[in-house]
């Protein structure tokens, strides 16, 4: 679960005008604006600060994924002459490995089969996290509109976390006293908690009622995908 970082977190967490942002953090646009207003530098680190060894690993892993994608694509296109064009045309670059879903899925599958067994558990988990977010088809778009007040992001994200959801992205606009926020929430964790989409939606809506003057809409991403993507 990524942690949503708000203005308050930056204010308390900054040290000598610098705030360390890890992979596990998701900055709200409000927090970014606050940092730039206060002159706080946002320093991006590849992992949680205590795990100092991780950045190296992460680079190595990206390279590893890339290699596997290349191998896998080569193997499959050799195996079947009618391999789909995008895969066979996928260039052996990091961009291809990180942006295109099909090679990623292949990479993940290949990981599971062979390479993962040789890696230690922590590495394996990191690889899957790297390769998973864009390949999932199970996310909700949560839209929150209402009267602005402190703590809304924290309260909404707390409910999301409680249900097992994982914040994948946040977008936020504040106009005078009103705000409009869009969260993208990965729902894979809901099943592990045995929660249905309906319960997830109801919990968020209950929270909106408790916050007051706030409207919250929860919709599965497929409706947006089907209406806007071909």
């Amino acid at each position, binding site marked *: 679960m990524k942690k949503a970082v708000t203005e308050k977190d930056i204010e308390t967490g900054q040290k000598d005008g610098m705030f360390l942002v890890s992979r596990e953090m998701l900055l709200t646009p409000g927090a970014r604006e606050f940092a730039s207003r206060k002159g706080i530098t946002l320093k991006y680190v590849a992992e949680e600060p205590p795990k100092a060894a991780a950045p190296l690993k992460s680079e190595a892993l990206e390279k590893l994924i890339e290699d596997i994608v290349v191998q896998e694509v080569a193997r499959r296109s050799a195996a079947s002459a009618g391999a789909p064009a995008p895969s066979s045309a996928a260039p052996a670059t990091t961009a291809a490995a990180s942006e295109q879903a099909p090679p990623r899925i292949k990479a993940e599958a290949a990981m599971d089969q062979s390479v993962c067994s040789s890696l230690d558990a922590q590495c394996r988990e990191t690889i899957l996290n790297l390769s998973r977010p864009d390949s999932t088809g199970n996310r909700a778009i949560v839209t929150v509109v209402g009267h602005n007040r402190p703590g809304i992001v924290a309260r909404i994200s707390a409910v999301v976390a409680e249900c097992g959801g994982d914040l994948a992205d946040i977008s936020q606009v504040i106009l005078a006293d009103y705000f409009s926020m869009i969260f993208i929430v990965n729902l894979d964790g809901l099943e592990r908690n045995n929660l249905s989409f309906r319960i997830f939606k109801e919990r968020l809506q209950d929270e909106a009622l408790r916050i007051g003057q706030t409207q919250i809409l929860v919709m599965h991403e497929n409706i*947006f995908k089907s209406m806007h993507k071909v």
Partner: protein
Amino acid sequence: MLFSMNEIHETIRMIEAEHLDIRTVTLGVSLLDAPHGSVDALCKFLYERLYGRAHRLVECAAQVEDRYGIPIVNKRISLTPMSLVCEGLKTTDEYVAVARVLDQVAQDVGVDYIAGFSALVHKGATTGDLRFMRSIPKALAATKRVCSSVNLGSTRSGINMDSVLVMAETIKELAEITPHGAGCARLVVFCNAAEDNPFIAGAFHGVGEPDAVINVGVSGPGVVLAALRRMKREGKFSDLAQVAETIKKMAFKITRAGELVGREVAGMLGDPVSFGIVDLSLAPTPAIGDSISDIIEEMGVEATGAPGTTAALAMLVDAVKKGGTMASTSVGGLSGAFIPVSEDAGMVAAALRGSICLEKLEAMTAVCSVGLDMVAVPGDTPVETIAGIIADELAIGMVNNKTTAVRILPVPDSKPGDVIDLGGLLGQLVIMPVSQYSCAGFVRLTGRIPPPITSVKN
């Protein structure tokens, strides 16, 4: 972010403010294996089959509604034409008993209508078909949820004028035994009836269909209207190609939403239910802003029915079809734009101010689906005149190789200009004037209007 803020806001706006909804999710159920002969055995079979197939329909639709935040207004069932299933029955009472079972099962599974109390007599009626048609008034009067349709003609076979007259009498009889003739809102006659139409009252599960299918009817006049208004605000409303383009894009999005919902519901219901089609029809509701008439007026026709109406409607329907067929390969049903007078607040207003009349509506149906729909006429309109209205409308469908229909309510004790509120989705009936000249000599001729030359294609 995977989606742009604009895309997300547009979707939410379409659903929350512009009445984008799924008008109906209709479960078609085959009854071809029903037992013949004994009415008791048939009733038992019908209840068990329909309850078994449909008891989870409402629940599954609600789950999909929740998941995507898109309202599914109606959950319905369509059946194999009951005249086929009931061919062995002998008396009107037996038909009524069957209709009551359908009504009961609809109530028990929580759907608002069950359709398919239907007959296909476009080339000729069997003795059973005739008994069946004669039983329709009593069957509909005895039930609340059962809908009936009869296919009286087709491009391939012509128009069965004998049955047109029978159905005109049936409509008159039904109007007289139900309050305000409201029972006629559940009875429609067709030319070229669609076997996979999800919309009530004309839905039935065709004999060429599998065991069970989910067909979806989308909605969206409000969305198209809002898009045109936005074009106007942005000063882009001048070129027809651009107007058509805007409507096409909206139709695309609406259809995609419809197909998603249909596939999800079918998937949840599981074997043997499969996904059938999306019906692209723009279906208005009495809600303000959810009106085909308003779109026509937004396109620059002062009042619906004025010259230019048919051309504007033709363009609207064509753009909807183009957008929709791009969006889905499973397009079917009626797929056009409905102009049910009572169910469309703009049409009601047009009828009240006299800008629209039966004759203009008939012309409009040459370019849209589905026909003279929810039109009310005085109760003293002769049977022959009703038969003539039906024959005219069916002729348009027969010659143009399209579906046309008539759903007409001869409201007893009413005169032109009277308004009767049917409530709910059925809306307000405005009694429209009918030509005083008779066509009795023509409609009393027996036999069939031969199929047009366009039927010879092979």
